[in-house]
């Protein structure tokens, strides 16, 4: 139903665009506070990342940058909110571009068609998922693990705590023909005790958890899910180079509603490029197990479209039932 208010809002949105050509708008941007949308609740790892960028981008804009947590529905609430926001550059969604792409396949009725409604303004990082075993286990390489798991057959167990882990686990099983049973945990930490006691043979975990536990000497990382090695962890081999072809790469990005004027997108891109290229940010991102990742908005958009397709395939392979 088109109410009077919607019409008025539409008119209000259209008005400035008519009155001022894009160039003038870009010169004036930012003319007000900028809102960073965070799809995670305060206190999660990703929330810290969003707040870090808000803090670093703030001085460059000359305006205040506010972080708004809009968590819920596995990120869908934020995706829909961003897609429906005014395309004026004052609503910037800082989130996993890969996660936004995945939403198209993970849900029966995705709230919006992200390919048409979300525009990548800047990319931030790329990060892997990691295959880990207990340090006191006899498996030193992925080949050791594969061999042992083949012998163990359906008695083997592995832990996951996120969709990426499920996909990575399934790709590994498909490539090697092992039959381990997936045990799902809420967080990587929840699975630690079970893994150390030997009930869990291996796990596909997020890099923050995996790296922390490797440093503590409890877990050993056997392979990472990205197509190529990362600067953050140059010594860690990829799954692909050990004969298990896969490229499951998470990447964070700053996103705006489609239809945001090009000059505004370029401006946001410039801010993020400046922050992402500092050594401080590199060190910060490396701690999360990822590398700084800078590509142009157009390349970013292409990557988003490509990931929408890869996730269709991932979800099919991992037999994930779309929700809704």
């Amino acid at each position, binding site marked *: 139903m088109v109410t009077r208010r919607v019409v008025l809002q539409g008119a209000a949105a259209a008005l400035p665009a008519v009155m001022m050509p894009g160039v003038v708008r870009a010169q004036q941007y930012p003319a007000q506070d900028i809102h960073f949308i965070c799809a995670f609740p305060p206190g999660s790892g990703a*929330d*810290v990342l969003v707040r870090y960028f808000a803090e670093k981008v703030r001085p460059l804009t000359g305006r205040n940058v506010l972080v708004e947590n809009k968590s819920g529905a596995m990120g869908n609430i934020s995706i829909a909110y961003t897609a429906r926001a005014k395309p004026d550059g004052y609503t910037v969604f800082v989130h996993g571009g890969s996660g936004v792409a995945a939403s198209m396949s993970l849900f029966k009725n995705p709230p919006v068609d992200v390919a048409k409604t979300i525009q990548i303004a800047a990319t931030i990082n790329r990060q892997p998922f990691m295959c880990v075993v207990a340090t006191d286990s006899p498996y030193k390489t992925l080949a050791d693990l594969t061999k042992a798991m083949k012998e163990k057959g359906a008695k083997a167990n592995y832990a996951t705590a996120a*969709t990426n882990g499920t996909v990575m686990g399934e790709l590994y099983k498909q490539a090697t023909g092992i039959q381990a049973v997936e045990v799902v945990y809420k967080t990587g930490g*929840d699975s630690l005790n079970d893994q150390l006691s030997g009930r869990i043979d291996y796990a596909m975990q997020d890099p923050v958890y995996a790296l*922390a536990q490797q440093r503590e000497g409890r877990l050993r990382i056997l392979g990472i899910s990205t197509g190529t090695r990362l600067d953050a962890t140059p010594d860690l081999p990829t799954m692909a180079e050990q004969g298990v072809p896969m490229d499951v790469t998470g990447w964070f990005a700053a996103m705006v509603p489609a239809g945001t004027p090009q000059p505004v997108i370029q401006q946001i891109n410039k801010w993020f490029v400046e922050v992402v290229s500092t050594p401080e940010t590199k060190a910060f991102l490396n701690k999360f197990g990822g590398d700084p990742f800078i590509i142009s908005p157009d390349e970013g958009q292409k990557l988003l479209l490509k990931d929408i397709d890869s996730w269709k395939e991932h979800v099919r392979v991992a037999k994930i039932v779309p929700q809704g």
Partner: protein
Amino acid sequence: MDIIGNLTTGFVAALSWDNVLFCLIGCFLGTLIGVLPGIGPIPAIAMLLPITFGLDPLSSLIMLAGIYYGAAYGGSTTSILVNMPGEASAIVTCIDGHQMAKQGRAGPALAIAALGSFFAGTIATIFVAGFGPILSAFAQQFNSPDYFSLMVLGLVTAVILAHGSVLKAVTIILVGLLLGLVGTDVNSGTTRYTFGISDIWDGIDFLPVVIGMFGVTEIIKNLEAKQYLRDPIKAKLSTMWPTKKDFRDSAMPILRGTALGSILGILPGGGAVLSSFAAYTVEKKVAKDPSRFGKGAIEGVAGPESANNAASQTSFIPLLTLGLPSNAVMALMMGAMMIQGIQPGSAVMTSRPDLFWGMVASMWIGNAMLVVLNLPLLPMWVRLLSVPYRLLYPAILMFCVIGVYANNNNATQMVIVAVFTLFGYILMRVGAEPAPMILGFILGPLMEENLRRSLVLSRGDPMIFFNRPISATLLFLTFCVVLLIVLPSFRKTREVAFQEE
């Protein structure tokens, strides 16, 4: 000797002028946030996190930790005064604390809560300093089946929380369990009982539920009462401080609460929440006259308050020794450390002993500050109750609404508050208590996750729960508690029999 050496390092680091100042700022802000009903420590710490970027790592952690204790402390203040728990651990404080306030004994309740917390904080600090690493090794022994059995024990003891009908208590816990199931199933990713409402895909949030069931319901209850009944919470100044008898009654509960809280706090996930519930249950069971509980028994404030403070200190152990955050606040602290370039985990102890022990020492300093800060303020808090009802309660309602909304910038949360207010009102009418339901609501999902995980691991063999010593012990304890619940009826008949003789 080692403890003393370590603590000395810590106090030297934590007692610098800067750090004491940041500790004070943290405690003050935390108390302020905690006292405002509905506004919890998590959004506060998240908002203040960027401010700490420029600070020295130890100072920033000390300040954030101060907010955490301060908020927990302020939270008990609102629980006692206006029956409005800010977090799960403060719910039990409402049961007897608010009753005490209604009897004009808000002062003693607040004072005992403060002193009990301080004592528990002191002991827990020593505990962390002396046994942190050993304790974390113990926590590491807990596997999925053990967690399941722990949750079963927790839920069964919840029955004791309620006074009155056991049947009603069991029913209400089951309702809580069902509500806990709403949202996305961890094992299969299926959304359950969401009725297509995407806002509850991640489950029903805790805050709007307790604000509705406790806070707003309380306001409605008061509105129903006659005017002269509404304002009687006018404390006499003579009863501002606990009497000698109060101290005597509280001493043992504080000790028991401290012990329980210190141990349960170490367990990552759910331990700290269980502690205050467990302490209440223990107090009610050892009391000579359990019928006083729920009617303003000071033991019901002293035990749980000490337990939850001890647990909030020892919950740093999993973070500092295992690199595992045990709750959302700890996750934020972990984020704060990472921004500062510190990797949380046991390495902190060797690579940055000043930081590790400084934080431990700051826990004690923070607790001491809270007592110093709050005891003089106590008469002021109590006087707050003499603010006319028509001014006080609309203000409380407003803060609740702001707090719940600000948590997630989401208007659906308001609807949830309204729904649970209605539900809380119905419960009040039928004479059932909301506290056991909340415990079911929190523990239910944890219990289910661990049950299903264990059964996946054992390929469906339930013996997995009896083969492990920890799990078997916990189940045995559960059995004992069930006996305890059934026993009073035996005891009564026995007493009757004796009287007849």
